[in-house]
């Protein structure tokens, strides 16, 4: 085959990649870009119609798609059972709530920890248990600068959930190194998705916030996808336990 002779260390040819949160935003971009880079992708999220939109945007291939609520233990079990063996996972499912710390209640804290921290971690554990992660696999978490290098107003719960991811990947990276499975995260600054649809930040506040970025704009979902692709590819074969910062220079100031 010609493709084997081509020099393409960043290619995802012959790799199967599971993408969570694939029905929207970053997850959708990750799925599409992975398919463009030669991967076979397996999509998952709760919303069937939006998941289908992503599926229809993939470049042709033997892709698959499964609906699942990742906070539902039995759905996670069954998802882990149904998916084929993969060479990588990109955990993109996540939620955000802008809530000043003085209003934080156990219920909201539990919900955000469940979606952003427990779900991706437990899904990974189930996949490992069911031998669904091939040797040389790469696990990528879409974390955030929030909770790892900084935080934001009303962002304490979210930061905690991402900080927890940051902690666990270090331990996972060590424990899975003997299998040559790598575990990393991408830590993006603000990305243009529908993530702030809750509307607690006004348009002028958003404009002001963008202006704080040295590169004077928010990131694009594809720009996060490219980072994930690097971590999934053989080019990152010696990269594990790291956080890849993609933030337009935000945390320099």
């Amino acid at each position, binding site marked *: 085959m010609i493709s084997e002779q081509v020099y393409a260390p960043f290619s995802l040819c012959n790799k199967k990649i599971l993408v969570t949160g694939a029905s929207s935003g970053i997850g959708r971009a990750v799925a599409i870009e992975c398919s463009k880079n030669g991967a076979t992708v397996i999509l998952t999220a709760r919303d069937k119609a939006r998941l289908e939109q992503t599926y229809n945007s993939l470049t042709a291939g033997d892709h698959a798609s499964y609906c699942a609520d990742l906070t539902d233990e039995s759905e996670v079990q069954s998802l882990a059972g149904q998916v084929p063996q993969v060479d990588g996972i990109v955990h993109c499912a996540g939620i955000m709530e802008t809530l*000043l710390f*003085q*209003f934080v209640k156990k219920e909201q804290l539990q919900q955000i920890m469940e979606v952003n921290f427990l779900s991706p971690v437990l899904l990974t554990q189930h996949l490992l248990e069911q031998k669904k992660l091939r040797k040389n696999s790469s696990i990528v978490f879409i974390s955030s600068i929030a909770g790892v290098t900084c935080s934001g107003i*009303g962002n304490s719960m979210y930061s905690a959930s991402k900080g927890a991811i940051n902690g666990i990947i270090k331990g996972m990276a060590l424990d899975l190194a003997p299998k040559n499975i790598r575990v990393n995260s991408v830590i993006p600054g603000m990305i243009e998705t529908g993530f702030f649809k809750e*509307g*607690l930040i*006004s348009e002028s*506040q958003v404009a002001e916030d963008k202006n704080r970025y040295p590169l004077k704009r928010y990131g694009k979902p594809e720009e996060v996808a490219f980072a994930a692709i690097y971590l999934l590819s053989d080019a990152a074969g010696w990269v594990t336990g790291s956080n890849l910062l993609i933030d337009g220079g935000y945390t320099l100031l």
Partner: protein
Amino acid sequence: MELNDFIKDFADQFDETDFSEFAAETKFRELEEWSSLTGLALLNMIKAKYKIHVTAEQLLKISTIGELFNFIQQ
């Protein structure tokens, strides 16, 4: 929902301003202590206590405490 209770909840989001400064006709953005952070605190308080989701853009169109009270009553 009583206007007086709402005024109290509104005033609770401030630390320095004297309670006597809060009334239905108070233009809250003119209060010295007002900031975008107080704005977010108000939205969080209204959601937690009155179970109503007010957005930042909606709040921008409102100038007095009484108007905000009427808005969330609708």
